[in-house]
């Protein structure tokens, strides 16, 4: 306990350095802007700025290092977690997938009940509380998880990867079969280039440039950045948007605080559940937000107000989503397994900066880990305060004409992908995967399994083959420890969940299915 507090103190000393504070502020502000823009998500925002983080991490700016870079990227994520709700509440257009759930009660509270200020402050306040509770849990349990993870060998690590893949398929995916296809596509793309164990060429079809493999950064920028823009161009076009003017006053803040006090149990319990859900590899804030909404409805005595502007319908999902967003960093930092697509992109950053996510990170790069944890507290505090102060300004971003903002985002995406290796091939990958991402989204193929498998594909294969070499080819090695066996059993159970759901649905007849999580 004292160790943790001591480490956290050291983390605050790192995070409070002027350069880190400056980049945290830049990150959360950019994240808020990205969150407000419907064409751009938190994942794509982090992916687009990944090349800039490389420059920051290598120390080209005085005083900056890899901790500054991760603070910048995480700042974008925290900003986007808050910012995505603004357009949901004010314009009935979700800025982020996890803000879709706020269309149910956020917009009605703002429009029908004429309380946009209360809707926004309720959302920001519950986001802040959810993130704070999750960060406290992160602070005290991350080291414990990392210590346990140190005893992992190749069979256990392979089981962790398999478990993370099965959670992507078994929990939340609208079509588990499509999720499997995307997962396998990600694994296949990760295999392009040199085989890391034998040095053999594979899947490059004689192309020398492909020997370096397909980078996950250009692919992710394409899938999420360009893909989302094309999808929103098709879905929304350049049409009329219903808008509500928003000003926040102290009255709104006090009213939201009163509402929070009445719903404290809901917000706290949803935050804890959001944290536990987010720790599961492969999950992000979106699935958690729907879970949080369901729980809020479940707890409510009067369910009739849901869908008409019920504050619990805002606070419940927001606390859960933000807690899950913070928690998604836990498996990334402690096990090297990303908890969400956004944390997969942040993990890609760690690799590019020369860091190896996983249990050894806590030993070899203590400053980095604790600086990051401390920055989560500061990041959410800054985001909360900026949100309260800057809502009218952020809402005005929506008024930047389509003819300016869209080519600007595409330009930034293309430069971001080019500047990583000064390679036009990466630009081509970004554009190709932009079209692929748009089409897959349209055909309702989930993109998260593809990205997670692309990022983890190499490590998964390495641990699989190291295990087999250690076991002389016997598959018994995968069940050689109780921990690995438990994870295999869990993986199989999770993989069978969709089958069980289908059987149950057949037995009980047709039922209304909640909206499927996207990220």
């Amino acid at each position, binding site marked *: 306990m004292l160790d943790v507090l001591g480490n956290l103190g050291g983390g605050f000393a790192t995070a409070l350095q002027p350069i880190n504070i400056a980049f945290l502020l830049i990150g959360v502000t950019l994240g808020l802007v990205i969150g407000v823009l419907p064409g751009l998500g938190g994942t794509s925002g982090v992916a687009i700025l990944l*090349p*800039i983080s490389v*420059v920051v991490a290598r120390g*080209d700016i005085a005083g900056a290092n890899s901790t500054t870079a991760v603070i910048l990227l995480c700042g974008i994520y925290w900003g986007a977690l808050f910012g995505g709700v603004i357009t949901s509440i004010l314009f009935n257009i979700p800025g982020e997938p996890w803000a879709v759930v706020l269309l149910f009660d956020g917009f009605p509270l703002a429009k029908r009940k004429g309380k946009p200020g209360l809707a926004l402050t309720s959302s920001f306040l519950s986001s802040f509380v959810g993130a704070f509770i999750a960060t406290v849990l992160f602070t005290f349990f991350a080291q414990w998880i990392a210590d346990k993870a140190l005893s992992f060998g190749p069979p256990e690590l392979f089981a962790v990867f398999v478990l993370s893949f099965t959670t992507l398929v078994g929990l939340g995916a609208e*079509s588990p*079969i499509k999720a*499997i*296809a995307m*997962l*396998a*596509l990600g*694994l*296949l793309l990760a*295999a392009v280039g040199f*085989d890391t*164990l*034998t040095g*053999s060429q*594979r*899947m490059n*079809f004689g192309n020398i440039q492909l020997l370096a493999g397909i980078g996950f950064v250009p692919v992710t920028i394409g899938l999420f950045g360009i893909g989302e823009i*094309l999808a929103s*161009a*098709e879905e929304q*076009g*350049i049409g009329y948007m219903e808008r509500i003017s928003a000003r926040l006053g102290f009255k709104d803040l006090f009213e939201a605080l009163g509402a929070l006090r009445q719903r404290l149990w809901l917000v706290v319990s949803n935050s804890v559940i959001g944290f536990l859900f987010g720790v599961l590899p492969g999950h992000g804030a979106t699935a958690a937000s729907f879970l949080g909404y369901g729980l809020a409805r479940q707890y409510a005595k009067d369910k009739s107000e849901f869908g008409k502007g019920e504050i619990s319908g805002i606070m419940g999902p927001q606390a859960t989503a933000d807690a899950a967003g913070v928690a998604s960093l836990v498996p990334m930092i402690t096990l090297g397994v990303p908890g969400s697509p956004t944390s997969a992109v942040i993990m890609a950053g760690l690799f590019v900066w020369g860091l190896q996510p996983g249990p050894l990170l806590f030993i070899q790069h203590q400053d980095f880990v604790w600086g990051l944890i401390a920055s989560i507290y500061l990041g959410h505090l800054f985001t909360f305060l900026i949100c309260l102060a800057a809502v009218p300004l952020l809402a005005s971003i929506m008024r930047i*004409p*389509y*003819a*300016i903002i*869209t*080519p*600007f985002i*595409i*330009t*930034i995406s*293309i*430069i971001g992908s*080019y*500047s990583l290796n000064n390679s*036009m091939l990466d*630009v*081509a990958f970004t*554009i190709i995967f*932009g*079209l692929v991402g748009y*089409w*897959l989204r349209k*055909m309702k*193929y989930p993109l998260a399994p593809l990205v997670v498998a692309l990022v983890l594909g190499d490590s998964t*294969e390495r641990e*699989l*083959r190291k295990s*087999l*070499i*250690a*076991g*002389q*080819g*016997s598959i018994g090695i995968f069940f050689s420890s109780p921990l690995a066996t438990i994870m295999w059993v869990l993986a199989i159970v999770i993989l069978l969940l969709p089958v069980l759901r289908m059987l149950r649905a057949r037995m009980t007849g047709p039922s209304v299915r909640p909206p499927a999580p996207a990220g």
Partner: protein
Amino acid sequence: MGTAAAIVLIAAVAMFDSRGVFTTLPGTSPGDVGPSWYPFWAAALMGVAAVFVGYRTMVTPQPAEGAFATRESVTSVLKLVIPMFLYAFSFKWLGFYLATIVYMGFFAAYLGRYRWWGVLAAATLTPLAIYLLFEVAFRLILPKSIFYTMGFPL
């Protein structure tokens, strides 16, 4: 159905490329499955999943599969895709900055229908901001045009 068929095709190509899975390559450690095993079985899994998706689509046709909602939605997407392709292709000759000036200017004029000064501002301010951010602040050199060697600054 078309998407599933495309995935099956990719899987077939990948499996053909990884056909070495059935032979033991020299230098492979005892117990190791070799370099082709992983891509082969990943492709096989992908192919089987896509066949299943295709079968389900055939049995219960999905309304969204293979069709755009309206003619306008296709136009909206093409309005973005075609200029994006031309923009990326033009890097080789125009370099990043000239291409961006043309690209941003085109959107401002064509989609925004701004007056000349609006088009000029949109076309020049973005490349200027990117120049200051990337080349001045972060020292990342972006591609220049074929005129650069003749003394043109961009």
